C-alpha cells in the first residue's frame, strides 16, 4: 500500500491530538491528547521504516513508547497532586505561574 495513506492517517491523528490539547479543559483529556500526538508520530516512524527498509525508525518507536509511558505516569501524578490542592482538574482554573 502507498505510504501516503499512513501519513495521512498520522496527520489526522496528530491534528486531533493538537486540537484536544488546545481546546479541552480536563487535564487528563489533555494528557490523552498528548499520547495521541506521540502515537501519530510513532505511526509515521513505522511507515517510513517499512518504506525505506531501515529498522532504525522502529527502534525509535520503542524509545518513544517507553518515554511516553514514563511521562504519563509523572503527568498523572502531577494532576493528582494539583487536584488534591484545588479540587479541580480544569486547566483554566490552574494558573500558578501567572505574572
Amino acid at each position, binding site marked *: 500500500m502507498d505510504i501516503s495513506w499512513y501519513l495521512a492517517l498520522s496527520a489526522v491523528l496528530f491534528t486531533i491530538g493538537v486540537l484536544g490539547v*488546545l481546546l479541552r479543559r480536563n487535564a487528563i483529556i*489533555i494528557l490523552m491528547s498528548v499520547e495521541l500526538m506521540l502515537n501519530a508520530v510513532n505511526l509515521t516512524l513505522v511507515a517510513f521504516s517499512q518504506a525505506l527498509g531501515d529498522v532504525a525508525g522502529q527502534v525509535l518507536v520503542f524509545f518513544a513508547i517507553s518515554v511516553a509511558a514514563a511521562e504519563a505516569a509523572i503527568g498523572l501524578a502531577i494532576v493528582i497532586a494539583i487536584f488534591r490542592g484545588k479540587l479541580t482538574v480544569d486547566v*483554566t482554573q490552574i494558573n*500558578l*505561574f*501567572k*505574572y
Partner: protein
Amino acid sequence: MEPDLLVRLILLLPLAGAVFNGVLPLFMPGLRRRETLLGSVGTAVVALPFVLAVYLFVTYGGEPVVTTFFTWMAAGDLSVSFAYRIDELSLLMTLIVTGVGGLIHLYSIGYMHGDPGFWRFFAYLNLFIFMMLNLVLGDNLPVLFLGWEGVGLCSYLLIGFWYTDLKNSAAANKAFIMNRVGDFAFLLAMFILFRELGSLDFDVILSEGPGMSQAAVNWVVLLLFFGATGKSAQIPLYTWLPDAMAGPTPVSALIHAATMVTSGLYLLARLSPLVLSAPGIMALVAVIGATTALVAATIAITQNDIKKVLAYSTVSQLGYMFLASGVGAFFVAIFHVMTHAFFKGCLFLGSGSVIHAMHHVEHEVAHHGKGHLDPQDMRTMGGLKRYMPTTRLTFLLSTLAIAGIPLFSGFFSKDEILFKAFEYGYDGHAYAWFAWGVGVLTAFLTAVYMTRCYVLTFEGRPRWPLAETVHPHESPWMMTVPLWVLGFLSVVGGFLGLPGVIAHGELNWIHHWLAGEHGPVAEAAVHGHVPLALEWGLIGLGALIALVGVGLAWQWYAQHGLAFDARLKERFGRLYRWAAELYHVDDFYRATFVRLVIGGAEKGLAPFDQRVVDGLVNGVARMTRGLGLALRYLQTGLVQAYAVAVVLGVVLIIALMLFGS
C-alpha cells in the same frame, strides 16, 4: 663580558627589584616587615648596575654600542625598537643615576625605618631607577619618552607617598598635571620629527634633522624645550617642584634634585646638533634659564622651610644648566648636572638627616606638653652642629660647593657656565650678555641663601622649646655613609672639568669625554676668543663673588640670626614680600588655569554628565523596565495559551520552510 648582556642586566636588575619589593609583599604580608631584606635587595639591584656601568665605562672603546631587544611598534613606515645605546653621554648619566641612586637607596633604609610603607617605597624607587635608565639609555625618542613618562609616574607615586594627607596628594597631582602640559609639547615635537624624517632613531634625527626646513627645526626645538621646562621645572612650569617636597626626603634628593629633573638637560644635550641649528630658540632657552635662576634664587632667600630653600635652589641651578645649553655649551650643562647631583644630593640627604633628628625633638617636646613644632622649619632649629657633627660637616662642604667657593666642585661647573655665556656674548650674541649678567647676580644670591640656610640650621643657639633637656641625635650609619660619599664627591667632583685657562683646556676631562671629536654632544662654534688675562679675571670674579656672598651672609646671620630676615624685609619691603609670596605665580595659575578648568568642569561638564550621560544610561534602564512591564501580561499562567503560541510558532516555521524562498 659582552656589552649586550651588561646593558640587559643594568636595565633588568632594578625592574626585578621593583617586582620583588612591590609584588611579592602584596601576596606575602609577612614580608612587609622584613625591612633589612627588602632594603638590601632594593639597594643591591641599583648598586650592582653601578658596578656594571663602571666596568662598561672603563672598557669603553669609543664606539657607541647599540643593543636591540625587540621591535616595539611597527606600523606603516614607523618602526620603533626597544633599542638601547651606550655612548659617552648615556654612560655618564647611567653612572650618576645608579651611583647617586644607590647611595640614596642605602640612605633610605635608615630614613624610612619603621614606615609601614617601607616595601612600597623601595618598589617605587627601584621602578624609578629602571625608568630613568630607559630615559638615558634609550636609542630612540619613544623609548626615551617611555622613561620620561615612567619617571613622571614614579615621581607622582613618591610625592604622594604619604597619601593619607590630602596636601601630599594635591602636590603629587600638581606635579603630574604640570608635567603633562610639557609632555604634550614633547609629543608634538615627535610627531613633527616623524613627519619630516620618517624615523625617531637618534642616528637619523642627528644626521638628517639639521637638514629640515628652518621652520620645522625651530618648532621641534621649541616644543622639545617646552617639554623640558615641565620636567626640569623652568618658567613657566616650575611651581610643581617646591610642592614636590611633600614626598619623603630621599625622594627629593634622588628624583627632584639629582636625576629626573635633569632629564630635560639630557634631552637637549642628546639632540644638541639639532638645537644648535635653531639659534633663535637657543636665545629663548638661555633667557628663560637665566630668568628662572634669578627668580628662584630670590624666592629661596625668603623661605623658612629647609627643604623649600633647597627646592628653589634646585630650580635655580637647573636654570643655570639651561643657561649653559642656551649658549651652546651642552657639555657644561651636563657637567653641572653631575656636580649638582653630588652637592644637592648631599644637601637634601643632610636636610633629611636634620628632619629625622628634629622629628625626635618634636616628639619629646609634644611629650612634655610644650606644643608642636614643624621639624622642617629652620626657625626652630639652630645650633645643631653640636649634636650632628657628620651631618653638619657634609652639609657645610656641599654648601660651600654650591656657593662656588674655589676648588669645590660647584666652583668649576658654575664658573664654566658663566665663562661660556661670557664667551658667547664676546662672540657677538647679545642675549648671552644678559644671561651672563643675571648668572653673576644669581651666583651671589646662591652663596647668600645657602649660607643663610646652613647658619640658621647648624650655628648659633638652639631655638626649639626645652633646648636644655631635649637633644637631637646623629643619624645611623646607613644615612651618614652616603652623606660622606656625596660630601667627598661634591668637594672633588669639579676636577673632572678644569677650566680652559689651565693647560689650554687639555685637563678638562668632561669636555674631551662628551664633546670630543667623536663625542655625542655638540657645542657652539666660537670665533672671537676671550683673551687669557680676561679669562683669569672672570675666574677671579667668580671666586670673589662666592667668597663675598658666603662671607657677608655668614656675618649677617651668625650675628643677627633670624633678626636679619626682618631687617631684610624692612630694607627691601615690597620686593621681599613679593618674593616671599612666590611672585604670585602660583596665585596667578590658581586664579586663571585652575579656576578655568574647575569652573568649566562645574558649569559645563557636570551638567553634561548629569543630564546627557546619566540620561542615556538611565534611559536605557527605564526603557528596558517599561518593555518588561508591558510584556509581562503575556505570562497568563494558562498552559493552553502557551500551547497556542507554540502551535502558531510551529505553523509559522513550517509555512516559512514551505513557501519562503
